[in-house]
């Protein structure tokens, strides 16, 4: 009996980073905090290593790297050659049947849960350490053969030139890398964006900031458009709105995603209603309390589900923000300076 290498997200938590990589472990942890995350499963680091072992590919690639000697460290050209060679070897080495079956079974079970055969999913890499050049994400993947192809491609990204260079530079083995894969349901996004439980520019901890646009979240994260901006008082939940004219969005096309024009009647309408905003803030504050630190979280509103189930989370991490109190300190100093003149 072989070791378990596929996990449901609910089975995972933040202690499982080494097992399934950061992305999967975080999604698992989020389910534990009562957040809705896109349902799906994780292929562990062992899964990749088993593929490399059973097919003999690991040994072949290791031999290839060994033959190049230590000089590969200095030559970008040899790193590019190594990338091409390793990827070529991978391309001609399909998954062992038993492994392919395991992935297909889990994918079909996921489809069955939603009564949607060939349901679209996202296939995302999940490294155990954050590693440049190894962050492949495939959106809107449909059908078992496609899912297998994309999992294989995520694994291949391990041999992107930048990933190889990074490992060489850090003194890690070049011929392998700890990588997990997340296969999760594609959310039918009505709108998407981010919420921060701190105002990042000022360190103001009394307000949360939400930014969002229609469609998938890529348009917000990439900064292509001016998103809607909602500032919410964390105590009173009072909302201050800055609704922008949103002319472009990112949508699913059936075979992937694409940028497109937002239909005219939606451009000046807020992408979130008050109930959705309050639900986002409620969950975000729970997570902030759990971690004891301000959070930076990515959300999607699923058009197929009803509130509160429609609020789906895809990312939660500690927020980066200006030193807390900086604004308050500056105000205090300005006030004290003003007082000097009263004496």
């Amino acid at each position, binding site marked *: 009996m072989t070791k378990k290498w596929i996990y449901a997200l609910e089975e995972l938590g933040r202690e499982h980073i080494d097992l399934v990589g950061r992305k999967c472990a975080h999604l698992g942890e989020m389910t534990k905090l009562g957040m809705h995350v896109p349902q799906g499963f994780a292929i562990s680091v062992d899964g990749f290593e088993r593929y490399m072992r059973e097919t003999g590919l690991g040994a072949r690639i290791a031999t290839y790297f060994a033959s190049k000697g230590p000089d590969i460290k200095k030559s970008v050209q040899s790193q590019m050659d190594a990338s091409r060679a390793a990827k070529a070897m991978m391309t001609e080495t399909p998954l062992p049947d038993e492994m392919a079956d395991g992935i297909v079974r889990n994918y079909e079970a996921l489809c069955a849960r939603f009564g949607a055969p060939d349901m679209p999913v996202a296939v995302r890499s999940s490294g155990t350490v954050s590693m440049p050049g190894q962050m492949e994400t495939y959106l809107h993947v449909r059908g078992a053969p496609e899912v297998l192809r994309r999992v294989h491609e995520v694994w291949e990204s391990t041999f992107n030139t930048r990933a190889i260079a990074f490992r060489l530079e850090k003194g890690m083995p070049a011929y392998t890398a700890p990588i997990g894969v997340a296969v999760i349901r594609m959310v039918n996004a009505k709108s998407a964006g981010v919420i921060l439980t701190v105002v990042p520019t000022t360190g103001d901890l009394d307000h949360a900031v939400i930014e969002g646009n229609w469609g998938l979240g890529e348009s917000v994260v990439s900064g292509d458009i001016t998103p809607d901006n909602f500032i919410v008082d964390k105590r009173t939940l009072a909302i201050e709105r800055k609704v922008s004219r949103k002319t472009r969005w990112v949508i699913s096309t059936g075979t992937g995603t694409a940028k497109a024009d937002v239909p005219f009647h939606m451009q000046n309408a807020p992408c979130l209603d008050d109930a959705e905003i309050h639900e986002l803030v409620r969950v975000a504050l729970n997570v902030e309390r759990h971690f004891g630190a301000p959070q930076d979280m990515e959300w999607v509103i699923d058009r197929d589900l009803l509130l509160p189930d429609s609020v789906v989370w895809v990312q939660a991490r500690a927020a980066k923000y200006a030193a807390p109190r900086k604004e308050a*300190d*500056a105000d205090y*100093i*300005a*006030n*004290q*300076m*003003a007082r*000097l*003149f009263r004496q």
Partner: protein
Amino acid sequence: MTSVNGVDTAKLSAVVPGFEFDEKADLAQSPAWFLDGTHSVPPWTPLFGWFWINFCRHGMQYGAEKLSLPTVKGWDWRFRNGGGYLTLLLVKSEAEQKQREERFRVAIRPFIDDYDGLWKSQLDEILGRYEKLKALDLDKASNIELLDNFEQTINVCRRMWEIHMYMMYGTFTAYILFESMCRDLLQIDDTNPLFHKLISGFDNKVLRVDKRIWEFSKEADKLGLADVVLKSDPKDLVKNIESAPHGHDFMREFRAFLDEDGWRMQRMSEINMPTWIEDPAPPLANMKQFIIKGGEFNLEEERAKLGEERQAAEKEVLAKIAPEQKGWFTTLLRLAQKSGVFSEEHDHYLDLYMHALMRRSAMGIARRLVGAGTIESADDIFFVIPEEIRKVALAPEQFDLRQIVHARRAAWREWCKTPNPPVILAGGFDMDQAMGVLVKSNDPIALKVVVGSMPVVRPEIKADLHGTCGSPGVAEGPARVIMSEEELADVQPGEILVAATTSPSWTPVFSFIKGVVVDRGASLSHAAIVGREYGIPVLMNVFVGTQRIKTGQRIRMDTNMGALFILDK
């Protein structure tokens, strides 16, 4: 009958029209007018006085207004016999103070939020304006271009004073708040050595220029020029170095350095003496003093030591601050630490540089006027005012300013003979009341540059003189009493400098003297800041040091006790 050299002075136009001191009207406006002893002793020439009175005055009112200082609207200035007299423009009603306070809270924020960015943007602006003035070749320019350059110089000078006073008011307000917080939380003020340690050990432009001169002293030694330098009088230095082997190359390099950093005057606030670019003798004399002293440039080592002491002092102080106060206290500490750097750098980039450009433009016109016979010699221009320059500049041969120059020069000589009174008071108003007005203004510049604190007299220590601590330490050595810039070249290594005040152009000597005693000074005055950066003691507000101490007498100063002892009596 007022007559000097046969010219009826009553017929002479005012030196600073609109701002000549008028006893009746001006004492009705304010009962106390203070002489600016730091900048207008000895008395200004008419041309420089015109610039100062018009634009220092404008800059202070601009700065106070831009920051909306709650209690003061800057200073008013008058001209009297070459002296600048000032009085404060107090905000009169409490309601207006409240309104100004509201605006002040917003206006001061750029200083707190990004001090370095603010200072850099102001510097970039003014340095850009300087470059435009320098672009004109004065000797090839037409009369129209020359006059235009002079008018632009007037405009740039006005802008310089706006930036100067806006930055100075904002910077010093932060410093005063920090001192006030230190008094509340740590029971120390800015005459305490621990306080000085907190704000010392920073690099600045003036110190970097000093270091370049030291580097030239090493270079001169390497090229075998040390002997020539040591044997030459300051006035012969250029000539003697030029004619020595390698001397020509050396001077070429030295002049290249001056083209960059020599835009400064020998006297801080006057333009009737050559700039370093015109006459390299003063910086070469400094270089000579470095050669006499020998050894390494002590400033680097001193800076490293001060830096370490500062870090230790910060640690000591922060340990006493409550955790919830650390945030703002640290921000404020960093801000206060900028004060010293600002004080020195603004002298270099604003006052000295601008004055050098004023001299440049005025001399350009002067040479043209001499050529046309309008005046006799180039330095007559300092006895002419801009209104007269405008009158004659385009057709100089049509006019004769010689009578006016003669009369003004004669009047100026009279001013130099009779010192201006330190204060002019209305009847029934005494000095204590006058000082009370200064303090009540809460004007940051008045408090930290002009007034300072009063020495505490302690009879039990039997000191000959008392002063306040501008920079901590104890020193003993022969005194060197300096009354003017010309005597600077006489200062010898190991001496203690005794002066009325010191000017930024004096910094090079700070690296080889043991200590400084000044008649007047406050913690942000030049002598105190530079003394702290060079790690030598500075005793301030001694008031009569230059009268009581004689050059060559051995003296001992202990700034920690605020005491000065004259050992050979």
